[in-house]
């Protein structure tokens, strides 16, 4: 009888311990711009919290917010603020999207390494992307047709660029639409007449970054919001972030997390 009781107590203890040691899962999806920040910070966070498992997918800001709305993710990564329509759909379904800024970013305007044009105004950028200006010679550059490269219209980066640089105007139909920041940087680096744009975290040595309205995209100009194409990057949760989700977001916003943000090429929150 004693042995049986001991075994029962042991079994209960084992079940109890295993329940407490259960791994908590955090699922994130959304913006490809926020993806490297989420991946790098998740790695560091999981090193410190081995009982928390964070899985991260891309897909685009809209996909992340739709997944939050459908209750399949804990965090929606977004490189733009949530739209009114999305907020409405979420609230009707009992989901309360709550925004957490995790980093700042500037959308850098990129040209080929050989291109001497070093500054463009927002007006000139709009003229290029809408097909009004078609040759670099009209901007003080070489006699070279401009190859317009843009992000696909589903991306949050495109939406911010479209709003801040183009004022909602339609991108010229001959523009090359690419699905990621990396693809834009690579294409601009390979095409002498190209112009493109990408988040600061994606810049490499193969491209020139031009100033906009004579303001260079930098940590200082993004933080003080003087760079015309600066933006915040967000993580959205359903209601106030709690538990493992809250701890993870608090870590990203902490000095250690913001250091990782800067290591990834983005700008830390003020």
């Amino acid at each position, binding site marked *: 009888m004693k042995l049986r009781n001991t075994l029962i107590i042991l079994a209960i203890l084992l079940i109890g311990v295993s329940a407490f040691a259960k791994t908590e899962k955090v699922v994130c999806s959304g913006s490809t711009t926020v993806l490297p920040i989420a991946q790098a910070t998740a790695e560091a966070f999981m090193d410190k919290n081995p009982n928390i498992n964070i899985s991260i997918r891309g897909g685009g800001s809209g*996909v992340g917010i*739709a997944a939050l709305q459908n209750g399949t993710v804990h965090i929606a990564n977004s490189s733009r603020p949530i739209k*009114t329509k999305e907020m*409405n759909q979420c609230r009707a379904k*009992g989901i309360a999207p709550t925004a957490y800024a995790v980093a700042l970013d500037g959308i850098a305007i990129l040209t080929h390494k050989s291109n001497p044009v070093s500054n463009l105004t927002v007006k000139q950028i709009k003229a290029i992307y809408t097909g009004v200006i078609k040759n670099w010679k009209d901007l003080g550059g070489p006699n070279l047709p401009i190859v317009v490269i843009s992000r696909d219209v589903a991306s949050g980066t495109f939406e911010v660029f479209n709003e801040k640089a183009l004022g909602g105007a339609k991108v010229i139909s001959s523009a090359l639409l690419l699905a990621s920041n990396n693809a834009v940087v690579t294409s601009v680096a390979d095409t002498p007449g190209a112009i493109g744009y990408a988040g600061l975290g994606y810049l490499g040595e193969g491209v020139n970054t031009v100033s906009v309205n004579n303001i260079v995209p930098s940590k200082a100009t993004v933080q003080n919001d003087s760079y015309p194409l600066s933006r915040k990057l967000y993580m959205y949760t359903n209601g106030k972030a709690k538990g493992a989700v809250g701890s993870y977001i608090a870590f990203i916003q902490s000095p250690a997390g913001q250091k990782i943000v800067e290591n990834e090429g983005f700008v830390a929150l003020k």
Partner: protein
Amino acid sequence: MKRLIVLLCLGVMILPLMAEEIKLTGEMWNRWTLETGDAPAGENTILRNNLSLERGYLGLEPKFSDAVKGRFTVDIFSTDLVKDGAGLKIKYAYLDFNKLLPVPDMTATIGLQKVYFGSIYDWDYTLIGKAPTDEYKFANSADYGITINGFIPGGWGEYALGVYNGEGYKNYGSNLKGNIEPAFLANLRVIPITGLTLGGSFMLNSSERSDSLTGLGGDNPKYNEQKMMDAYLRAAYGPLSLTGEYIIKDVTYPNKPANDMSANCASVNAVIKLNSLVEKDIDLVARYDRSDPTDSDKDENIVTAITGGVNYNFMHDDSAKPAMQLQLNYTTKSNSVKTTNDSSALMLQLKWRFSNTLKV
């Protein structure tokens, strides 16, 4: 039909040339139905036992610019219930102008479009049955018209104001009743707290035309004026959502007042998502309808329908929306007076959807 197909093909070829991106969408509803009820002889028997493509949609959604989008959807079906066995209708053909008016999140929509009445415009068929407005013939789900629709900033709700033909998308050509008066619609939904939606719709419509065009003079006794109102409530909390709707329709016949009538319907449905319990995307669904189609002493009959069912969403798209769904519904319908119309139906439906965006 041939002309329609030629127009469809031309539309499919021309739209991509003008748009900067185009979304291709489709969904198919393959259904098995077993319906039992009273035969004309009076015995309870199997009335229907068949497989059908009950509904299918194919759509093109071109985006011409950030400010202008279009939608073109055809409704296809194949079933033994109709004479020719299959059919094709244009369900939507409209343009959305997002920046025509200087109001944030407001859209002007022109063309064959949704009718923003009650729950009919965003009914998601979590249950197999139609929205009550559609099921009990209060209003059409689509019609030709012009609407101003949008969202209240901050996610506080949505609204729509519209002028429609009033005949619905199913009527065309000789089926149209010669009505010359437009239908007017107003719809408002507010979300005062997350998870609670309160709404109301109001519509004025008419059918037939009052005066005769034959030259013989006289008033048309079939001409009628309709006033419809809908109250809507939806509550969603965690895995549970509950939707309630109450619809009233008053019909007056100015040329034959004896035919004046009114109808009303109350409908409640509930959905419980079980995914957190069973780790599969399974929903339990239930619905109760009470419809009084005439609300008159001489022709009194109240229809009550109760539905119970289960959905298994076994494949999803990137946004976690069901891409493949198996639905099982059992509905029993009873009549307070016309009891020979009582019936019950068991339906098993495999629904699949796809959506791809092409950059042009």
